[in-house]
């Protein structure tokens, strides 16, 4: 177990070192994409916990991100709070909302739970983030502008210090991801997975369903909110558009596409969600062998749909799940080969 843990820490450090270097040579646009990728990766990671581990369905994860983002934005703009405090408040707000959303999940499951969470996403999208009644929270139609913020007392300007925000986000993501992987094998993770596999026997074997389901929803919302809370710092403002209903649906689709049971799949999905649309809008039009072509952002949605169908048929465990299985096969095959060589020698 300890060697496993050491391996995980090492792998996380290597991943951090590599990922931290990647956006350096690119322009501001791609640096923004990189930071956005981590924010979306948090959203996907929240689904790994909720759907992958505990087996609950949620179609309102972007709402949790949005609540984190607006809470942080409000505190920084209005109260000039330190950004770290604002993030903490955003995470706490998302956690509370997550527990509240978890309440119906105590009774509902499957399609009804999906509809309820979809309704919650819709309500927040239309009647909270975009409504005048909640201007104190949303900052009106223009949203909050966060041009400068203090992080640990240091002045950070979002347009100039995008890399700094990216590194903080990435470091946090690595820590949370490591905790998530450990959670999977821990006692609590076992109880979560027991609920996923059979609620009935989990209850009769002494697992407190109320407590663990609410905890799962709360933690999941907190993870999504943690990513969302950094959105104002990265983008310089908060607006309803990134956290609308459709983002929630995209979270669900891409989490399944990449492999909803695996933590690294969340990182993969975050990159996919943030970078591909930008690449399409930048390089999606031009001429190819003299034929002009135009691939707009709309094609991204289409591609996600097609990929999802292909994945469900060919890779039922998601893209990362497939990579993992192949890697494991390769490793065990290599072991057999080396063992034979040893015998021969």
């Amino acid at each position: 177990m300890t060697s496993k843990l050491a391996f995980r820490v090492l792998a996380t450090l290597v991943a951090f070192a590599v990922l931290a270097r990647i956006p350096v040579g690119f322009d501001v646009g791609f640096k923004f994409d990189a930071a956005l990728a981590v924010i979306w990766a948090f959203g996907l990671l929240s689904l790994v916990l909720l759907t992958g581990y505990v087996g609950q369905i949620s179609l309102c994860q972007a709402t949790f991100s949005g609540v984190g983002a607006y809470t942080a934005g409000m505190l920084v703009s209005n109260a000039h709070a330190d950004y770290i405090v604002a993030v903490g408040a955003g995470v706490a707000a998302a956690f509370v909302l997550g527990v509240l959303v978890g309440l119906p999940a105590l009774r509902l499951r499957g399609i009804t739970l999906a509809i309820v969470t979809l309704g919650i996403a819709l309500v927040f999208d239309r009647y909270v983030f975009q409504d005048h009644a909640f201007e104190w929270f949303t900052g009106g139609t223009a949203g909050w502008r966060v041009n400068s913020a203090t992080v640990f007392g240091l002045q950070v300007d979002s347009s100039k210090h995008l890399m700094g925000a990216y590194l903080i986000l990435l470091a946090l993501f690595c820590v949370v991801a490591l905790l998530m992987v450990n959670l999977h094998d821990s006692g609590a993770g076992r109880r979560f997975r027991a609920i996923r596999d059979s609620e009935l026997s989990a209850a009769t074997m002494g697992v407190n369903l109320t407590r663990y389901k609410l905890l799962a929803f709360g933690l999941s919302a907190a993870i999504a909110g943690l990513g969302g809370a950094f959105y104002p710092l990265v983008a310089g403002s908060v607006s309803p558009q990134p956290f609308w209903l459709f983002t929630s649906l995209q979270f669900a689709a891409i989490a399944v596409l990449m492999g909803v049971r695996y933590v690294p799949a969340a990182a993969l999905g975050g990159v996919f969600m943030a970078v591909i649309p930008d690449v399409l809008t930048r390089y999606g039009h031009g001429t190819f062998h003299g034929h002009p072509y135009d691939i707009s952002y709309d094609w991204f949605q289409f591609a996600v749909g097609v990929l999802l169908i292909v994945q469900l048929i060919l890779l039922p465990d998601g893209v990362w799940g497939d990579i993992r299985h192949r890697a494991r096969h390769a490793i065990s095959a290599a072991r057999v080969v080396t063992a034979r060589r040893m015998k021969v020698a």
Partner: protein
Amino acid sequence: MLRVRDVTVRFGGITALDAVSLDLNRGEILGLIGPNGAGKTTLFNSISGVVRPERGSIFFEGHSLTYAPPHVRARRGVARTFQNLQLWPSMSVEENLMVPMDALGGRNTFSDALYMPFSAYAERASMERARAILHVLDLDRYRHTPAGDLPAGIQRRVEIARALAMRPKLLLLDEPAAGLDAKETSRLAELLHTVRERFHVSMLLVDHDMSLVMRVCDYVYVLDFGKLLAHGEPAAIRNDPKVLAAYLGEESKKLTGEVEAAARARRDERPLLEVRGLAAGYGGLEVIRDVSLDVKPGEVVACIGANGAGKTTTLRAISGMIHPRRGRVTFAGKDVTGRSAERITRLGLVHIPEGRGLFPNISVEDTLRLVSNTAGHDVDMKPAFELFPRLRERRTQLVGTLSGGEQQMVALARAILSRPRLVMIDEMSQGLAPTVVRQLFDIIRVFREQGIAVLLVEQFVESALDVADRAFVFEHGTIGLSGEASELRADRKLVAGSYLGTAVEDGAAIGVANGNGNGNGHHLDPALMETVAVRLPAKVKRALEQRAEAEGRPAGALAIELLQQVDRQ
């Protein structure tokens, strides 16, 4: 140890349990048997906390369990297994065992995720205990295998291991032999004895499989129609005429000569339905294997056998409701193996499933009109109403508001309107009063007169053999016996054997237990009678109770008298 007193449970108007009492002593393996619908599962569920009794009380080690929620029962030391394998399939066997252990030791989510020292310690402790249990149950090999990938017999063992991980004092086993073949069942019996010796648990066992109950249990309670029919040691139960009657129905002597003649005439005809080497199941369970049977045109064939022997599954596999895994089904000369259910229905094979498969919110008339969809033309409802005059009176009533017998009539009427060549009826008489059942069997005779073949799955064996030309007796997912219905009826012993498992020898186990009991019996201290009474070996206590019952005196008084005799000597 466990004391159930006058427990009554009602579901709507049906009394599922009527003032049932039961005693389970420490170290005892108690069997609970009875025909389908006798209330075994209801009693089991009210002990494990799924069902709340309307009246009566349940005491476990002096604490009332009558209204305790499931997790409180678990803490007191009552664990259960499930009939339909409820392991966590994607988790490894070891993890399956560790979840209930953690639940006992109050673990903290955050310290778990961070690998705090306490969690690491608790983790190692429970892992070691899990390994110890797995070792005793001979499951070491499968420690890291996902539970869902194991065959059903091993999953059963894992489920018992998981229940043991809760450190229970009483283990409730819900049909542990369901879906196991004869060999696996006998291994399970050995295993249960091992478990009792190694983990010091008492057990309550509900099962249809008599070979298991007779071999394993020290004492057996028999339920019928929600009432206690008999209780006693396995050997006595097996020969109890009341029990035999409950399982097989009343013995009937009448033989109808014309049926005989008709059957003989039909013997050479080509079969309408032919099933060869059929195997089918659900998920990891293979419920039936190597089932071969045939039905000739216009013949009535009965499938009988203990519950869980695979009768219903066979019907489902024939009619296309589930996909057969191996084997071939031929109907009217066409190979229909694995065809979709509605295409098989169009060929003239109608399946009336268990529970009748009706639509409760549709009127009788409309239900019968639905037949036109499958028949492809408008249906004349006259023949149905001629056969069932009562349905004409109730034609506008919703099916859900009819009585059980009337609903079965609707199902039969619907079947006959689609002009079938073969009707398969699953548990036609389930939950119906005897008079209604008699009427329905008369209808089956009418079916035969009209040249419609019938394949029956029935729990009322005698009535079924009465009406049928031939019968197949199911045992452990395959056909154990087959023959002319009249022959089988004459050979009552043979059929009883497949229900009550007469072929099992269990003398050795009882002998050993008796030796134990005598050894401890002499060292009783009369002054401590009240506390010692609970600690008495089950065999001694049971004998005491039986003698007290026979003499009509309280067991305590009898015990003190006996002890005084020992003192004087």
